């Protein structure tokens, strides 16, 4: 392989390393960004859904309280209870499909089932004592499990952020490693250029100078099979020819 090709290949290799490392770094960073974005999105979604569930339960709670205290037994409260029940169910299903915290969602589901079984006991005879003694417990249970769900998702975000804070350097690790490898290759490249190109040229110059000035035999060893070796061979041939030609002169 010629010098030109060797040097070109050396630069291309370093270029390829930096280029591919750059691409992989970008992919890693975008994966990292996606993961962070997804987590933040889920966190936001969980707040929204938890709010919807809490609103629905709150509404049902108010409607139930009004229906118990209302002596006229207006049907409007029943429809409010049914509507809020439907709202809750919708929010719960959204949580099930989008947020992956099966344990906490199951806890909400169980609390809601119990809550529903209590609400279904409501009749014209139910009074405020039932409301405070029986109903309130199931209500608090349900709202507590919803809040717990919200806290858990938030806690996960906090943990992730803390991890990010601790390992901030990790985000740039790929770049640092690629840079380190690039510097290492450049050092090796410099060494190779010195050792296999510049060194032999200096040796040939020194050998030639020695021959010209002091007639020291031209003995230079070049290990590579490239233009420098060819140059050395030609110089040696030239010197031999010069030696032969000299007596005639």
């Amino acid at each position: 392989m010629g010098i030109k090709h060797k040097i070109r290949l050396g630069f291309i290799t370093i270029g390829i390393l930096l280029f591919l490392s750059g691409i992989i770094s970008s992919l890693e960073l975008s994966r990292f960004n996606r993961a962070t974005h997804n987590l933040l999105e889920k966190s936001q979604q969980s707040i929204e859904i938890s709010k919807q569930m809490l609103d629905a339960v709150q509404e049902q709670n108010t409607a139930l309280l009004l229906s118990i205290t209302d002596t006229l037994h207006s049907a409007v409260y029943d429809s409010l209870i049914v509507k809020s029940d439907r709202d809750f169910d919708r929010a719960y299903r959204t949580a099930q499909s989008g947020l992956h915290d099966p344990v906490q969602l199951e806890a909400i589901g169980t609390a809601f089932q119990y809550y529903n079984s209590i609400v279904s006991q409501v009749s014209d005879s139910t009074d405020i004592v039932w409301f405070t003694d029986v109903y309130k417990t199931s209500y608090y249970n349900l709202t507590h499990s919803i809040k717990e769900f919200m806290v858990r998702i938030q806690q996960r975000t906090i943990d992730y952020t803390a991890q990010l804070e601790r390992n901030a350097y990790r985000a740039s690790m790929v770049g640092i490693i690629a840079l380190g490898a690039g510097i290492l290759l450049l050092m090796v490249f410099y060494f190779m250029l010195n050792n296999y190109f510049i060194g032999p040229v200096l040796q040939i110059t020194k050998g030639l100078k020695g021959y010209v000035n002091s007639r020291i035999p031209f003995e230079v060893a070049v290990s590579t099979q490239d233009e420098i070796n060819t140059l050395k061979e030609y110089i040696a041939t030239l010197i031999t020819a010069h030696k032969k030609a000299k007596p005639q002169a």
Partner: protein
Amino acid sequence: MKLGVVIRYVGLVMLLNAAFMLISALISLFNGMDTGFYPLLLSFLITAIIGAFPLIFVPNDNNLSNKESYVIVVMAWVMSCLLGMVPYLIWGGEFTFTNAWFESTSGFTTTGATILSDVEALPKGLLFWRAATHWIGGVGVVLFAIVILPSMGRMKMSLSSAEMSMMAKDNFRYTTKKILQIIIVVYVGLTLCETLVLMAVGMDWFDALTNSFSTVATGGFSTKNLSIMYYHSVTIEMVITFFMLVSGIHMGLIYATLRGKHNNVFRSEVARFYVLSLLVSTLIVSASLLMNHNYTNVWEALRYGVFQVVSYATTTGFASTDNALWPPLAMIVMIYCTIQCAMAGSSAGGVKADRVLLILKAIKARVLKLQHPNAVIRIKQNGLTQEDGVVNAAILLVMIYLLTALVGTVLLTAMNLDLLTSFTATIASLSNVGPGFGKVSNLASFGPLPEAAKWLLSLLMLFGRLEFFGFIHIFMLRSWK
């Protein structure tokens, strides 16, 4: 010194590492492109380019001096550890810079000590890479380079003398080319056999292959937090015990035995001593476990006793039970096993059974000499008369081992570690066993140790792997003419 040529050969070893990184990346890819894929792919690219780069400039040169071959061995090991930590570093998790270096060094030196508290959290590709570092290190990074090189002659001999213990080389009685073939055939053959047998007894292919890598390389990395204990299977333990025992035997002897040659394992004095020392150790450990009521059943005591003794003595370091609360007698015997280890010519570390037997014979000869001052007493091992130089070299190596163990223990205790942990961690690293006792017992992680302790233990692993002198030479290159 021809530094360019040294860089070229180290580059070839890096290419081998790159090949295993690529396989690991492919495993990640076929495992649903798990989180290990990009770290392994990038590591492969970096390692392959660094490995291939010197090939552009440096012409092939087969004439290597001993000095150059020693530098190649040490540089290849250090560079392998350095580039081997890249996948861990990029992946993150529990791998800080120190932890990644420790894990990588522990892998390539076949020590098997881990900083991970949750091994199972690693993606499959990285688990494979961990096991592969054992496998590459086990056969000797440089030995691989010699095999893949088309060149022949003096160079190979000088490289292999740095790689293997000199006593191992004496025992081979084959040409260098044949030695390399034997090592590869035995090593690959044992790995394949164990993988197939483990699969036959119910292990899945991935665990079977990675555990075989660890066993044959006498490493100890497992894919499970509970190591071999995870499988709760006597059959699996028996299979692994058998392969650990065989992997601790001189590879040339295994080959000779399989080929029905005269100088087989049954005729080897050292092999008999090695097996006998394992038997005696197992009996003492099992009896101690029974007497201390760790196990009430004789068979149970024997089951765990034999596995742990073989695991420590062959420098593998697998766990089939938690030995943190074992009685002092059992611990002392296990510590002896950690120091003596298996036979030269295997991938095991430590002082080696060959040297222990030789020193015992030297002691006997000395006593005889005192009784009969005019007698000419020759020390023979495996039918060959051992020169004084060989005996002295063995004694010197044991002395350096003990001195290093002392220095290591003192330094670790200075880092506020208790004496048991410090001493056993030091000798377990020097002998490339992995686990010790105390805070570094067989199911514990090295993660909680101080950072400085991890660096020191990594250095001891390299020191032990290169049988001390290989490493010492590097610091005395100027005086080496």
